């Protein structure tokens, strides 16, 4: 039965925790994680103390004073101001301490260091895109240098998303119509999970990504290569470059003809040069202009029977990348097979 996991294996996983992490918290991949975990365990031990105290007293009283046949109840007071004030003051002092500790940790999170490496982040259903200063654009995978503060300037093109990296203990909502900021520093190269933590619709659980931390001395080369990758493709080979951009489209558009939120690219490819019916009953010719317009201003031409959900990609794609996508759809047959697998 594949439905249920192998319980012993899973118990072993839980006991060890995830890679580098513990029973409660995932691995600590940023200096802030260290601070947050100290506060977490401080509150945890206070909580354990009070929980054990309360439950132990409750169990003790229930056993000791359980109802017995013919036993008279012992008299006891129905109030005691000194006692009651005491158990008001002690929790009060404790929560003031917890508040202060939590505030101090939080201030450390929001104070941005100088000289941070800056990345513009756009959340849109259902992927993340990252724009670097040198023009490199990444999707669902953010490459940053190890050991250097990184500052994210984030906005959304549609609904509210939330940028969450558990291993860094960081989260910030990504809101349409304004910028929100987040900064982190990851000393160790590696891959860290990124989640969208604010419910954003159908594929919310697939709006995930990877933060790829690379050694600082290699970062410059890697990011330069990422900025100029499309120039490595000759004009006649642009359709293949389009395939590399396709992951940004795949949450809504398939290559095999099946239907998701948007029309399949297979369908658009099949209709190349022909008419397509829009939701207001008018028709449009499927050509370079149609595809370009669908990318830059999608709401202007909604295909009949499809929802108006696609956000604009204006400014997120370079001119040559738009051309690559046009070529990709036009020459779909030459690049992928019927089920959408690349043809070598």
């Amino acid at each position, binding site marked *: 039965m594949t439905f249920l996991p192998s319980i012993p294996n899973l118990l072993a996983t839980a006991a060890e925790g995830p890679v580098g992490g513990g029973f409660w918290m995932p691995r600590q991949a940023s200096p802030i994680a260290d601070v947050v975990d100290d506060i977490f365990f401080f509150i945890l031990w206070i909580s354990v103390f009070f929980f054990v105290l309360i439950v132990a007293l409750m169990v003790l009283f229930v056993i000791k004073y359980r109802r017995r046949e013919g036993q008279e109840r012992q008299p006891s007071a129905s109030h005691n101001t000194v006692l*009651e004030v005491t*158990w008001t003051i002690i929790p009060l002092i404790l*929560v003031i301490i917890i508040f202060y500790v939590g*505030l101090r940790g939080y201030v450390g999170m929001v104070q941005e260091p100088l000289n941070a490496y800056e990345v513009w982040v756009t959340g849109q259903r259902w992927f993340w895109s990252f724009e670097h200063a040198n023009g490199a654009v990444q999707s669902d995978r953010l490459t940053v240098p190890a050991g250097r503060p990184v500052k994210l300037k984030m906005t959304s093109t549609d*609904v509210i998303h*939330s940028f969450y990296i558990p291993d860094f203990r960081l*989260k910030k909502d990504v809101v349409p119509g304004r910028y929100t900021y987040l900064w982190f520093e990851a000393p160790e190269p590696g891959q860290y999970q990124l989640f969208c933590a604010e419910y954003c619709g159908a594929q919310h659980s697939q709006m995930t990504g990877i933060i790829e931390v690379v050694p600082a001395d290699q970062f410059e080369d890697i990011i330069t290569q990422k900025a100029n990758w499309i120039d490595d493709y000759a004009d006649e080979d642009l359709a293949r470059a389009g395939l590399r951009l396709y992951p940004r489209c795949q949450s809504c558009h398939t290559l095999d003809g099946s239907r998701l939120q948007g029309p399949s690219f297979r369908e658009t490819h099949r209709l190349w040069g022909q008419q397509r019916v829009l939701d207001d009953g008018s028709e449009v010719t499927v050509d370079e202009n149609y595809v370009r317009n669908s990318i830059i201003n999608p709401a202007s031409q909604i295909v009949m029977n499809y929802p108006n959900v696609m956000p604009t990609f204006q400014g997120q794609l370079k001119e040559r990348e738009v051309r690559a996508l046009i070529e990709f759809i036009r020459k779909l047959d030459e690049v992928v097979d019927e089920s959408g697998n690349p043809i070598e």
Partner: protein
Amino acid sequence: MSMLTADHPGPQSNYLTHSRGILSWLFTLDHKRIGVMYLISILASFFVGGVLALLVRTELIAPGETIMGQDTYNRTFTMHGAIMIFLVIIPSIPAALGNFVLPIMLGAKDVAFPRLNLTSYWLWVLGAIFAVTSMVMGGVDTGWTFYAPYSTEEARTGVVYVTVGAFILGFSSIFTGLNFIVTIHRLRPRGMTWFRMPLFLWSLYATSIIQILATPVLGITLLLLIVERVFQVGIFDPALGGDPVLYQHFFWFYSHPAVYIMILPAMGIISELISIHSHKHIFGYRFIAYSSIAIALFGFLVWGHHMFTSGQSAVVNAIFSAITFSVSIPSAIKVFNWLATLYKGSISLNTPMLYALSFIFIFTIGGLTGLFLGTLATDIHLHDTYFVVAHFHYVMMGSALIAMIGGMHHWWPKITGKMYSEVMGRLAWALVFVGFNVAFFSQFMLGSQGMPRRYHDYSDTVGNWLPEKTELFHLYHVISSIGSYVMAIGFFLILFYLLHSIFKGRRAPANPWGGRSLEWQCASPPPHNNFDTPPAVGDCYDYSVLEWDAEEGGYHWREDVPHPNGEET
């Protein structure tokens, strides 16, 4: 004293037999019958919400699609949340048990406005039908929070109808609160001073204050949402020039106090149950009474703690974090006072008491885990993860609903005039208690390890999941789902033996537990008028005047103590 006429049947007559026919129920002005109708309707909604919860848990038992696709899943958890909050937990204790018990406990014949009370019930029915049909037909998938601008998008037409439903339900809640406040102010009999009122009434009073002050804000918010949708006026949607974070402020300004609409009456029930089943005077009456009012007032000032990651300024975050901690103090006072009530008591471990004790256990966990969420540094990590899901289920389900179930068992003999099986009661309690903790404690680890809430899938074969996360989340999801099934068995058992008791149960005595508050001086079930003459009021937690009568299977007034009414009961 009894006058046997056609209008006033013999002493055997009670509110159930007072008049007959379905219409005598549907248009009744009797608070007891309205309470019973609420109880049945709310339990039916709880059944629907519970089945949806089981579907959610089953979908999550394995990574990938298990029994439903992502769209169905999103609709299912939305309906689960909306039904459980708006149709079950918010009205459960005040409208069902409160309606039945409040006037009798107070010594009144009915609530102040019986017609308004019936209106509340029918508004609830109307709102429920509106909300549920539009969720089913319109495929609403916004989550119960209806966050803009997701909820204001064109594709989601169902949202307008659901919000109309929630708007109507809000009025039902406001009318009930208004009715209770006036009843407590105006209909107390001679001798029933504020500080002689049972603590359940204090908590219902505090709850009613929140209901009439906070619910209109929800109404206004939902109206603005509808105005934006229908007339394209920019209020929350940035595409029209609105501000989506403003919606969150409005929404939580109601919905955080609403948490106290859920938990305050539950605390009131626990104060009654702990004292009566320990046969000991409640400890620190005034501190408990004042703490209810304190929670009601502080509860209005903490809404911003739902928005620590929303982008609101660090200073605002710090202020809301500080005020949030102030709410924990009155809650802690209550827990310690309940413990002190147990001390040197004479504790009967019957079913209502088991629920009361498990409330202390669960509420302590629910309250303490709130500390992690009120603390800024840790909340940033835990916000919108399963840690929050676990926390609010510990408070809203494990505490508020468990207290409601406990209270239902406590007043069942009074409501139905029948005793249920103690053995079955304890067995079902054990299943619910164990199942609950297995289902929801595992979610604390799930959340602290980083699993976001409202995720349909956690499979590493789709998207960009690291396999290590999938493997760990799978473990806790399996444990959680198993717990939910155990709990479900417990709830079905309760349904079974309570129904059985109505038909086959032993006749209940007037006072099976030894309660001193006025409802235990009425017959079980109470007569139509509750009291023919205003009852004499004493200290409702002084049990020394009662003694056990083995023959009757209940308690009665000690013969050597003069009854305050100067007559025998």
